[in-house]
């Protein structure tokens, strides 16, 4: 089973005051810390689990700058065999362009299965996987919470709304977008990442992939990034912990839910 897994490095946003850049088209990224996109972390783990069960190889790919290699090294440390970074240079990227780049790169490889995360924690777009599958002309399914490979087919669970899964059989090769919780991603130590430096990490640029100008033309353009519109918002309870607790308990009493 040869598996390709597409991953992305994203900023950590919890407990961070995001600032908008001067052009108002994105965030100021100087002060941000980065991690592997949570969904992609589960996708890498799933790829490695399947390889451990069935043999074969795992190739991790990202479209990004040198700094993004961090997530590839992490994937190698988790058990991927090789990694590929495609440098987009200064090109404007949207989900469509990224999908074209990945389609071209993966199109030259041998694979049985392609995994992506359901979405990335920055743009929350959730479109690249399905677009890559279409580009490659293979079957696809989204929001996957379980995979069992049997006789050239993947029996998968698609997570639907409200605590319901749809079980289906998907012919291979296929692209599956992975939902969080599908497995328990293994811990990666600094030592492990250092060791994985021996594994191959290839870098290529857009020119060598032979993409057309149309492939590289974004279909969507972020015209402006802005802070959420004002809402009434929450009434903030101030004071020391004791005073806050007292206010909260009074509130619960008032709403008729305290014991």
């Amino acid at each position: 089973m040869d598996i390709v897994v597409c991953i992305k490095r994203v900023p950590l946003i919890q407990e961070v005051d995001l600032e908008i850049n001067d052009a108002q088209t994105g965030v100021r990224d100087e002060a941000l810390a980065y991690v592997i996109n949570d969904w992609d972390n589960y996708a890498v783990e799933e790829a490695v689990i399947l390889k451990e069960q069935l043999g074969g190889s795992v190739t991790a790919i990202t479209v990004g700058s040198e700094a993004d290699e961090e997530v590839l090294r992490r994937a190698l440390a988790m058990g991927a065999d090789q990694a590929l970074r495609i440098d987009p240079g200064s090109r404007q990227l949207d989900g469509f362009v990224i999908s074209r780049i990945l389609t071209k790169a993966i199109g030259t490889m041998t694979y049985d299965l392609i995994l992506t995360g359901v979405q990335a924690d920055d743009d929350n777009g959730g479109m690249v996987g399905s677009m890559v599958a279409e580009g490659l002309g293979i079957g696809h399914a989204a929001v996957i919470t379980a995979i069992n490979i049997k006789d050239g087919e993947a029996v998968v669970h698609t997570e639907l709304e409200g605590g319901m899964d749809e079980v289906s059989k998907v012919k291979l090769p296929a692209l599956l977008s992975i939902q969080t919780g599908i497995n328990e991603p293994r811990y990666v130590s600094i030592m492990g990442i250092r060791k994985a430096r021996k594994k191959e990490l290839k870098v290529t640029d857009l020119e060598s992939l032979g993409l057309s100008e149309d492939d590289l033309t974004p279909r969507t353009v972020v015209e402006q990034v802005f802070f959420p519109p004002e809402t009434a918002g929450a009434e903030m309870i101030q004071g020391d912990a004791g005073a806050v607790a007292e206010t909260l308990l009074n509130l619960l009493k008032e709403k008729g839910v305290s014991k």
Partner: protein
Amino acid sequence: MGHIFVIAEHRQGELRDITFEMLYKARALGREHAHTLTAVVLGGPDSGFGDRLAPWADRVVVMEDDRLSAFDADIYTAALLKLVTDEAPFLTLMGHTPWGMDLAPALSVRAGLPVATDCVDILLEEGGPVAIRQIYNGKLYSRVGFKASTGYMMTVRPGAFSLDEAPPEDGAGEVATRALDAEVPESRKEFVEFVDTGGGEVDIAQADLLVSVGRGVGEAENIDAVKALAELLGGTLSCSRPVVDRHWLPKYHQVGTSGKTVKPKVYLALGISGAFQHVAGIAGAGTVIAVNKDGKAPIFRVADYGVVDDLFTVVDALKEKITSG
């Protein structure tokens, strides 16, 4: 003057709310900009969906075929490609749902129409349509324009537009039945079954007070502190998705789109950022109280009361107050 298409979504014989939310928005846009509104529904034979959608749109296109009974991205893409090629709608809307996320991007590539996903608002401006989206889990918004095209696609966030229970009084769309006339490939997917994943010992949907814990709790061992508070308050413990993903609590505790929709009198959110998939599950809550270290967490935009502090500080202070009477 063009057409707006809304692709209906249904499951197990029921049209889903997102269908009507999209129709509601599309109808307003159509009125304002003189576009006609077509509801499109793909389904198995004799679904009866056509008549149910008729009051909401100018026209309903019903495609019924055995091969359309279960959602199948391959077959749905082929069927819709033919339809949007034949009729060239100006704007096509689908739900940003697990099925829509699977279908819309692939269709967009095959039809050569640009798509914006998970839109919370739609503007039709002179220069072309504009999608309003949330990014960074709702911490920021973006205004997204499109490369000029004959048609555009958007997937719409569930709950972004209001759900008008009663159909509009002046609506009476004609229902046109269309055969599945596209070249349909052999499917690469076979539906097996639906399985329930949400059941368990406790039904959080019945609770009056939910003490709900998010990833901010940090690690499994810390859950006990919150559990103890829930018990002292006579409330029920619930959680956000990452807590279940990490196996800190079983799935039946999860609130949100892929968990349970709850309607407690009070919802106390501890260390939960307020992603839309979570807050969609608490729309029916009476009072929402949020405790979060991050004053900019989106949860404060939907909460009635907020405390910016470490959740453990607040949890300990509450326990202390209760036990000391």
